[in-house]
Every structure is written in structure tokens, then in C-alpha cells.
């Protein structure tokens, strides 16, 4: 009857919305994590070239750098560029440069290294290989962020996990309560069925199946809604604000699959908890 579908729609809606909130949290924290990691895991490397390097050697080096997937040439700094940069950096004290006979600064490639997967050993090897190229004066890494960064990432991860866990509990609470309320409005029926001789099993199974179906449907629709919201947000962002500093990604499939699985589990656990209240008593 109509009244029953009203109750079903409400609990389905609650599951969708709850999972949507959870998914939004996941989406945001995933992107923030990605941004932080990209920033923290990129190491700047300066490859200083000898003054008398031949064009061919320079091209060789550039080609080699380009061939390494985790390395990206940010820019080439010529001797003159380096001189100008230093002059700007020294500011009002640039007069100290005037005491120098000629430009002592070497040209260099500024390279950004993605250290997501690589380890220290890998970089040492990489450095050795680079230094074997002709025309390279020195290879230098910028200050090592990774240690300081690790600490911060731990904080972020810790906060993320704690809050994500709390969100999960909150969503479970909301879903369970909604199912409890739907069952409460049916508790008289459940009682009558028991009076007529229905076993717990006979009453429980349809309710659990209902919870399962609602969990499935809710999860699917929540992911769909999340994706639509994401598309809308990204599209609007691009059209409204020409400046897109950060790339906003959708969740990779492990994540949204886990939203689905969590939704199914919550639907099932929710109805299990709720049904316990009304069937056992």
C-alpha cells in the first residue's frame, strides 16, 4: 500500500543522503590528501651544467631527464638567468656581485622529482647515473621536506581516519534509527505475525532482504549523485573561475566501490540491529 512505500522511500532517501555525505567527505579528503602528497612528495633537484658543455650533451641530458617517468623538467636556467635570479634574491645587496670578475654561476636544469614510489636508494642510483653524463658539474637536491612532511601527513591522515570513522558511525546511527522508526511503525504487524505463529526467521528474513536492497540501491544512487555533484562542481569551477590552481579529481574506483560496500553493509547491519529490537522482544 501507499503508506508502506512512503516509509520505504524515506529510509532509502536517508541511506542515499547519508552515503552522499560520507562520499563527499571521502572525495574532499581524498583530494586534499592528493594535493598534500603531490606537494610534499615532490623534490626539487638542480642539475648544474659545466660552462663549456656542448649542445649535444645538453640535449642528451634533457632527453634522459625526460625519459625518466618520475622526473619532470620544470625549467632550464641559463647562466644569465641564474645571475639575474641571484641579483633579485640579494635585493639591495646585489652590489656584492659587482665585485666578482665574471658570472660564476653555472646554468642548470630545475627538475621536479615525484618521490611517490621511489626510495632513497633509487634516487642515489639516479644521481650516479646522471653524474656519469658528460657536462654535468654537480647534481643537488633541495632541502629534504620528506621528514617534516611525513609528520604533517600523519596528522592529516590521523584526523582523516578519526573523522572518517566517526562519520561512518554517525551514518550507521542515522540509518539504524531510520530503519528502527520504519519498523516501529510496523511493530504491531510484527507482533500480530508472531501471534499467528510466524517464526523469528519468517519475520526477519524479509526485513533483512529489504535492508540489503535498500543498502544496494542507496549506495548506487549516492555514488551517482556524488558523481553528478562532482561534475557540476568541476564544470562550474572551470567556467566561473578561470584560475584552476588545484586539480579536483573524482574518487578512484576502490573508493567508490567501498562506498557501495559500506552502504550495503550499513543497510544490512542497520536492519539487523533494528530488527533485534522488535522481533526478539
Amino acid at each position, binding site marked *: 500500500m501507499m*503508506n*508502506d512505500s512512503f516509509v520505504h522511500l524515506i529510509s532509502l532517501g536517508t541511506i542515499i543522503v547519508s552515503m552522499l555525505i560520507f562520499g563527499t567527505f571521502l572525495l574532499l579528503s581524498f583530494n586534499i590528501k592528493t594535493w598534500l602528497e603531490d606537494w610534499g612528495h615532490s623534490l626539487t633537484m638542480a642539475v648544474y651544467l659545466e660552462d663549456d658543455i656542448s649542445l649535444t650533451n645538453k640535449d642528451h641530458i634533457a632527453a634522459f631527464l625526460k625519459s625518466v617517468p618520475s622526473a619532470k623538467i620544470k625549467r632550464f636556467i641559463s647562466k644569465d638567468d641564474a645571475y639575474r635570479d641571484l641579483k633579485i634574491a640579494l635585493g639591495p645587496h646585489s652590489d656584492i656581485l659587482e665585485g666578482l670578475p665574471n658570472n660564476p654561476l653555472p646554468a642548470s636544469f630545475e627538475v621536479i622529482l615525484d618521490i611517490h614510489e621511489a626510495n632513497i636508494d633509487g634516487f642515489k642510483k639516479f644521481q650516479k647515473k646522471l653524474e656519469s653524463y658528460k657536462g654535468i658539474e654537480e647534481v643537488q637536491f633541495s632541502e629534504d621536506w620528506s621528514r617534516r612532511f611525513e609528520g604533517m601527513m600523519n596528522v592529516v591522515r590521523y584526523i582523516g581516519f578519526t573523522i572518517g570513522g566517526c562519520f561512518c558511525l554517525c551514518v550507521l546511527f542515522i540509518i539504524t534509527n531510520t530503519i528502527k522508526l520504519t519498523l516501529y511503525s510496523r511493530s504491531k504487524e510484527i507482533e500480530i*505475525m508472531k501471534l*499467528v505463529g*510466524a517464526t523469528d526467521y*519468517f519475520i526477519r528474513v524479509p526485513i533483512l532482504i529489504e535492508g540489503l536492497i535498500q543498502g544496494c540501491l542507496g549506495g548506487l544512487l549516492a555514488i551517482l549523485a556524488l558523481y553528478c555533484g562532482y561534475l557540476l562542481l568541476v564544470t562550474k569551477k572551470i567556467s566561473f573561475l578561470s584560475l584552476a590552481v588545484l586539480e579536483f579529481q573524482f574518487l578512484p574506483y576502490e573508493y567508490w566501490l567501498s562506498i557501495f560496500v559500506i552502504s550495503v553493509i550499513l543497510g544490512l547491519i542497520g536492519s539487523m540491529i533494528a530488527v533485534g529490537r522488535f522481533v526478539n522482544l
Partner: protein
Amino acid sequence: MIQLFHINKNFGGKPAILDLNLKIRAGEFVFVTGPSGAGKTTLLRLIFGSDIPDSGQILINGINLSRINRSKLTFLRRKIGFIFQDFRLLPKKTVFDNVALALEVVGERANNIKKSTRQTLKLVGLAEKEKAFPLQLSGGEQQRVAIARAIVKKPLILLADEPTGNLDPILTQDIMVLFRSIHLKGTTVVIATHNQELMNNTALRKIPLQKGNIIDC
């Protein structure tokens, strides 16, 4: 066979059943009578196991109700048909489904369920209302659905609580005939009622309750 030994049942300190001893033989047909609040419904609920006595023992076909667990009780109940004073129909199921439920819970085959349900609805004069919902029925029609649900499973014991309170005299006689025919097939029938007409012209045993106990008349 239904046996009650020294049954007491209090609600908030006031006795609803007071030291009641009673024996109803298998296949007997008895009336439980008495004024409003005498304890008729409470007595039937005790026999059905949906109320638990404060003290005393109840045996149903030799099974002691205070000694069996919930799932055994469920299986015992399947052999008892209870016509509730307030009907207790499922508002979101049709008349057919309400009656069929009594067979579904015992895992009857779908074919049999359909046949038996239709037959029983015809017996109580509701063949045409099988697709209606309880709230779309008149009071007397609802009562007959409750009767149909109790008898469709051919129970060993039929407990009927004021089963004709909403029925006109002619229907009352029809239902009485129905109960007699069920009784003739071996069912123990216990009817709680005020209705004098129901008891007219019968030599059946009457159990007159007053303030939770049997009075000698």
C-alpha cells in the same frame, strides 16, 4: 486437553485471574461467560501463552507452558486458532493475505494455501471481499476475517474471544453453525462471550467467570 492449576494473574496489584482451576477435555465445546472485566480475555491469553501467569501451571495437551521456550511456543501456537476480540488484522495486507498468512507461516504449499483460503472465506461469507484491505471493511466483515484466519489452519484448539460482537443475529447463527461443524471434526472450542443468543438452546458447558474466578450458579 487444557488444564489450569491454581492460576493467578495480577495487573498492577489487582487480580485479573484468581486461583483458577479448570479442565477442558480434548474435543469439548465450552463457553466462558461473565461480565465485562471478569477475566475472559485474560484466561484465553493465558491458554494461548501470550500472557504468563504469576503463579500456577498450564498444560496444553500435556505440555507445560511454563517449561517451553519461545520457539516451541510458536510451534504450539500454530495448532491453536485465536479469534481476537479486537481482530488484530494486518492493515497493509488484503483480506486474502491476512487469512493466507496463517498457512504461510507454517510453510504450507502455495496451492493448498490458495484453495483453503478461498474455501474458508466462502464459509464466512466474504468470498467477494478477498482483495479488500481491512480498513475498507465493515466491523462485522473484519470480525469474519479474524474468524477465517483462526479456522483456516484447522486448529486443534479454537479460542474465540467475543467472536460475534459485531455480527447480526443471522450471521451469529451462521458462525455458530460453523463452530459446531469444526467442533464435530475434533477441534476443542472455547468461546468467551456475553451473547446469550449464542448459548441459547445448547446444553454445552458454560464457565461463568466473575472477578477472575468461576462462580457456582
